């Protein structure tokens, strides 16, 4: 095959656009999780609700390493370009299809099964895509600029998230809440088809990676990349080193800064969804150029120091930063406007039953402009002998401009740690492995570190916070002292422990001088 001469700018943009769209596809599912659970899962069926939780928080992440193995193998056998064209179409198709799945009320249990299957396909596709794009760009880049060029691929995850949040906010703003809940939530999924089509047209003219073609021409291709990557001690030790000395910590820094921060603002600080998402989007946009900066800097001073510094800063500053975020909106630090509290009670009948729903809305204003609202929904069963469902409580805070900027600054700090750990990681990983097994070998530690250690982080951390709050509540009810002084920070223990181990392993076992790719 003749290698067409293509500019690096074209190669980087064509690769990045496709990867960006895949991230967009992957994230809209998470960003719309609340709506999806009401459309595809019965809320009164615990098993299905469990399936819902599993599908939403874990399944897409857990299968990413399997996608890395399947598509990594293909990429090392038949080529980088063809493989990431397949992953692009798979991701686009799965995302578009989610937008078409009828709701649970229409097709019953098929709805959650279909959605879970499509979510798994999304995870598999993403597992194959990133390694392909990073390898492809890296194999076109000169040694002295590889960190800079591959850092463009590194921006795609953040930009993909920003676009997904932006599209959702725009769709919501363009219609009523009822219309969005009815059909509007499908639009971000359906839009994916258009984006994938554009990306397919851009990518189809790309030529194969020159290093891959050279290896193929010289007969240096792996016959069984999986066996060569993980069956040989020489390669397996590098895979493990990449995982425990780099991607585990990097994945946790990324998901703590970019995703847990969002969960923390919404679920733990109770900030209004739209306000919290706006804070995240601004923080992400300000921080994103730093991916390029640190990627480029890694070409000059090495990858290891920058990545480990990002992780170490996380270990040192996570608790103070999250504490500051919590205290910024903590109502006990604020003064309530006298006589501003209003309580409104409403009883409505529940359709199709003789039960009723008591909705109590408490609202209040604070002198700094913060608006508080708490809605408590209690189901009153007509049959008093039955056990009523637990009361549903939701607190929402609308915060003032000064607090918003404080939170944006905190999010920016978190994102800057992400850019240090994540910006140079693609270049670092591709330089660890030879061409014939690169796609497979770099993809697996990346997706275990990011998909499993990182991807599960928000769910685990939220669970740890809930566990700590429950323990405190039980202690208070028993008249004992609280167990956790700051239960809202307990979720950070998981990333702090693993990032700490990763920093030590990276510091001692990775030399960090190699900037040349082995053939």
């Amino acid at each position, binding site marked *: 095959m003749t290698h067409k001469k293509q500019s690096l700018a074209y190669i980087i943009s064509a690769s990045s656009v496709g990867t960006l769209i895949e991230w967009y596809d992957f994230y809209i599912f998470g960003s719309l999780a609340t709506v999806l659970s009401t459309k595809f899962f019965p809320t009164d069926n*615990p098993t299905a609700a*469990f399936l819902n*939780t*599993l599908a939403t*928080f*874990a399944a897409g992440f*857990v299968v990413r390493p399997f996608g890395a193995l399947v598509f990594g193998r293909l990429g090392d056998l038949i080529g980088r370009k063809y493989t990431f064209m397949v992953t692009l179409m798979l991701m686009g198709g799965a995302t578009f299809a989610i937008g078409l799945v009828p709701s649970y009320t229409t097709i019953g249990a098929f709805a959650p099964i279909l959605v879970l299957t499509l979510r798994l396909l999304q995870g598999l596709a993403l597992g194959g895509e990133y390694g392909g794009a990073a390898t492809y760009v890296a194999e076109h880049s000169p040694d002295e600029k590889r960190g800079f060029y591959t850092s463009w691929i590194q921006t795609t995850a953040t930009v993909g998230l920003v676009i997904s949040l932006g599209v959702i906010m725009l769709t919501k703003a363009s219609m009523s809440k009822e219309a969005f809940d009815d059909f509007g939530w499908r639009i971000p999924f359906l839009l994916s088809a258009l984006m994938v089509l554009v990306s397919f047209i851009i990518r189809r003219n790309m030529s194969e990676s020159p290093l891959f073609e050279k290896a193929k021409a010289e007969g240096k291709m792996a016959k069984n990349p999986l066996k060569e990557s993980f069956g040989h*001690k020489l390669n*397996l*030790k*590098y895979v*493990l*080193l990449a*995982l*425990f000395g780099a991607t585990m910590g990097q994945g946790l820094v990324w998901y703590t800064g970019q995703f847990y921060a969002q969960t923390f603002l919404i679920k733990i600080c109770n900030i209004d969804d739209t306000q919290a998402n706006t804070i995240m989007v601004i923080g992400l946009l300000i921080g994103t150029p730093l991916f390029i900066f640190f990627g480029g800097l890694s070409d000059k001073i090495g990858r290891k120091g920058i990545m480990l510094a990002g992780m170490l800063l996380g270990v040192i500053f996570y608790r103070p930063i999250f504490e500051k975020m919590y205290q910024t909106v903590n109502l006990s630090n604020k003064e309530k406007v006298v006589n501003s509290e209003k309580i409104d009670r409403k009883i409505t009948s529940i359709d199709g039953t003789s039960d009723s729903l008591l909705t109590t809305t408490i609202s209040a204003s604070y002198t700094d402009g913060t608006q508080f609202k708490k809605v408590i929904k209690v189901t009153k069963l007509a049959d008093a002998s039955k056990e009523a469902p637990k009361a549903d409580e939701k607190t929402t805070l609308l915060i003032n401009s000064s607090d918003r900027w404080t939170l944006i600054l905190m999010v920016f700090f978190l994102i800057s740690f992400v850019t240090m750990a994540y910006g140079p990681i693609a270049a670092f990983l591709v*330089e*660890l492995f030879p061409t014939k097994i690169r796609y497979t070998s770099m993809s697996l530690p990346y997706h*275990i570190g990011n998909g*499993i250690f990182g991807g*599960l982080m928000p*769910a*685990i951390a939220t*669970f740890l916070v809930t566990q700590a709050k429950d323990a405190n509540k039980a202690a208070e009810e028993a008249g004992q002292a609280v167990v956790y002084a700051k239960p809202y920070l307990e979720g950070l223990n998981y990333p702090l422990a693993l990032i700490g*181990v990763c920093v*030590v*392993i990276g510091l*001692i*076992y*990775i*030399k*960090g*001088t*190699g900037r040349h790719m082995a053939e």
Partner: protein
Amino acid sequence: MNALKKILGIVWIGLGLFAGYYLIISQALPLWKTGGNDLVPAIIYTFILAPLITLGMSIFGYYAVTGEFNNEIK
């Protein structure tokens, strides 16, 4: 430095085994008993994190002890 890498290998093996014990015995078992929504973290701890950390860290530690990481690592 090579001696330190080897000695720490024992630490990684120990840490991997401890993580497996902690995640399954201390964390997951009580959650399995509770059931309900606690099954999600129980499954994550038992079937994903514990095997991954225990097995991965133990093999990594073994390689470190046997001097596999003594040579120049990029």
